[in-house]
C-alpha cells in the first residue's frame, strides 16, 4: 500500500488531488459523477460578500489547448453559501476550502470572519488574482504591497490554514510569494489564469463580452510549472500547484517541481472523471517507482 496523504500546513489531504476554484462549483455538481470523498479536497467557487451576477454572455472562448473565461465571480454571496450550500456539503469526506474574493481589504476581512464560523472549513484560499473583475481581484495580486496588505489583514482574523492564490500575470512571481509568506500566509497556490484575448476574425469582434479573459488549460502548463518551480525554491511554505493539469503525469510534474497539493481545473470540463483517474494514476506511478509515499515526489526533480 502506498501512502497518498499529504499535509498542507496543518491540514491533511487524503491525497494531493483537489479541484480548482471556479471549476468544481460547490462540489455538489461533481458529486453527481463520483463520490467527493475520493479526492483530497475541493476549492469551492469564488465567493464574495454579496451576490454578484458576473459578466455578460459570452463568457467563454475555446483556444488552442485551452480556453478563456470571463465569468467574473458570479456567485450568490457568502450568506447564501452558509445557509443554502454549506449544509448540503458539510458531510463530504474531503477537505472543503473556500475561495474568497474582495474588492477591498474590508471585504476580505468580513468574508473571512464569516468563514471562521464554519467548522468544516479548515482552510481559506484568498483569491487576489482574478483577472475578470473590475475592482480588487488581480489588482491586489500583481503588486507586493497589495498582496501583503490583504494577507496581513486577513491573517489577523483567521487562525486556520490561510492559502494565498497568486496571479501569473507578474514579472516575478517569487517576489509576490515571498511578500505573502512574510505576512503570514501558510501556503501559496498558483497559478490563476493568464489574461488573454480572442477575436472572431470574420466578424471582427472580440469573442468575450469583456474583450479580455482568463486563459486556462494545458496551454499554460509550461508557464505554470515554471512558476511553481521558482516559487517552491523561493519560499519555505508549501505550494499548491495549478495550471493545465490533465492527467497523472501532469500532476506528478507539478509535485516534482515542488507542489505539495495540486488543483485540477479546466480538465474536468473535458472529462469530469479526470480527477479520480489522476488519483489512481499517481498511486500506480508510486508503485511502479517503488515509492512508499506521495511525499517523496514533492520537490523531487533531479537537476
Amino acid at each position, binding site marked *: 500500500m502506498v501512502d497518498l496523504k499529504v499535509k498542507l500546513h496543518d491540514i491533511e489531504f487524503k491525497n494531493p488531488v483537489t479541484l480548482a476554484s*471556479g*471549476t*468544481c*462549483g460547490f462540489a455538489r*455538481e*461533481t458529486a*453527481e*459523477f*463520483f463520490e467527493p470523498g475520493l479526492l483530497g479536497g475541493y476549492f469551492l*467557487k469564488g465567493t464574495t460578500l454579496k*451576490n454578484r*451576477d*458576473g459578466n455578460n*454572455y*459570452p*463568457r*467563454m472562448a*475555446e*483556444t*488552442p*489547448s*485551452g*480556453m478563456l*473565461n470571463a*465569468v467574473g465571480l*458570479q456567485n450568490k454571496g457568502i450568506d447564501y453559501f452558509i445557509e443554502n450550500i454549506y449544509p448540503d456539503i458539510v458531510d463530504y469526506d474531503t477537505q472543503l476550502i473556500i475561495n474568497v474574493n474582495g474588492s477591498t481589504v474590508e471585504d476580505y476581512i468580513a468574508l473571512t470572519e464569516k468563514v471562521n464560523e464554519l467548522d468544516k472549513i479548515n482552510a481559506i484560499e484568498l483569491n487576489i488574482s482574478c483577472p475578470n473583475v473590475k475592482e480588487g481581484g488581480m489588482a491586489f495580486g500583481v503588486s507586493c504591497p497589495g498582496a501583503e496588505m490583504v494577507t496581513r489583514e486577513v491573517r489577523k482574523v483567521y487562525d486556520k490554514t490561510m492559502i494565498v492564490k497568486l496571479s501569473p500575470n507578474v514579472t516575478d512571481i517569487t517576489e509576490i510569494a515571498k511578500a505573502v509568506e512574510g505576512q503570514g500566509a501558510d501556503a501559496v497556490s498558483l497559478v490563476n489564469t493568464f489574461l488573454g484575448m480572442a477575436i472572431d476574425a470574420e466578424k471582427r469582434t472580440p469573442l468575450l463580452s469583456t474583450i479580455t479573459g482568463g486563459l486556462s*488549460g*494545458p496551454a499554460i502548463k509550461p508557464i505554470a510549472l515554471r512558476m511553481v518551480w521558482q516559487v517552491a525554491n523561493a519560499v519555505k511554505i508549501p505550494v499548491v500547484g495549478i495550471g493545465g493539469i490533465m492527467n497523472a503525469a501532469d500532476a506528478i510534474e507539478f509535485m516534482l517541481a515542488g507542489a505539495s497539493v495540486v488543483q485540477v481545473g*479546466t480538465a*474536468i*470540463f*473535458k*472529462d*469530469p*472523471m479526470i480527477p479520480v483517474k489522476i488519483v489512481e494514476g499517481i498511486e500506480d506511478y508510486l508503485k511502479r517507482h517503488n515509492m512508499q509515499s506521495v511525499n517523496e515526489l514533492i520537490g523531487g526533480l533531479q537537476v
Partner: protein
Amino acid sequence: MPKKFVKEFNVIENSALNATNFLIKVQSDTELPEIKPGQFVNIEIKEAEEIFLRRPFSVFEVDYENDVISMIVKILGRGSRKLTEIKAGSKLSMVYPLGKTFTYPSADDKILLIGGGSGVAPMLFLAKESGLPVENVDILLGARSKEDHINVDDYKKYASLHYASEDGSLGEKGFVTQHSVFTDNLNSYTKIYACGPDGMMRAIAKEAKAANVFCEVSLENLMACGFGVCLCCIEPTNKGNQCVCTDGPVFNINDLKW
C-alpha cells in the same frame, strides 16, 4: 449513486440525412438512465487538432431496449464537421444525461413544436414523447430551402408536419414566424415549444408572449462544462443569471429577459 456519467459509447450508425445533417447512433454496454426531450449529451471530439472542449448535442431518440441514443448533428464548424466523419465501429465519449426536459403537455393540450437549424432533434423527440393524439400536435420546421430540410415523414404518426423555407422550395415561403400555422392559429395552441437559432426563438417568443400562449424554448448557449460548474453558459433570467446546462436548456419565455 451517480446521476451523470462519462462513458465511451459504440458508434453503430452515422448516416447523412442531407448535405449538412447527420444521424449518429451510439450504443452503451450498460443500461441507460431515463433520458427526456431537451436533455443533451456532451461529446468529446477526439483526434482533432485544436479542439479542446466537448460539444453539446440534444438527444434525438432513445432506444432503451438496445441502449441506443441518437443525435442529429448539423455541421456548423470544426467540431461538428469532425463528428460527422465518425465511422460506425468507433468509440464516442459522452457525458450524459445533461440538462432538464420540457414541461410535458397534459392530455387536453394542443401543442406546436417549432424547430430550425440544429434545433430539430429535441422537437421531434418531444413530439414522440408527448403522448398526445396526432391531431393535437403540430410540428413546424424551418430551413433555408428544401435541401436543408431533413425528411421527417416518420413523424406523421405523431404530428401534422408543416414546413417553412426561405426560398419557398418546401412548404410555405418565409420564416417559421411567417408560416400560416403560426400567424393564423397561434391562439389555437395551448403550448408552444421551440428550438433553433437565437433569432428564430426570439421572434417566436415575442409572438407567443403577445398572444399570451405558454411557450418554452431550448437554448443552445456556448458551453464549457455542461454540468453546472463553469458558469459560462448563463442566460439572464428573472431569477438572475441561470445556467443553460443545468437550469435549462429549456426555459419558459416568461422567465427570460427577451
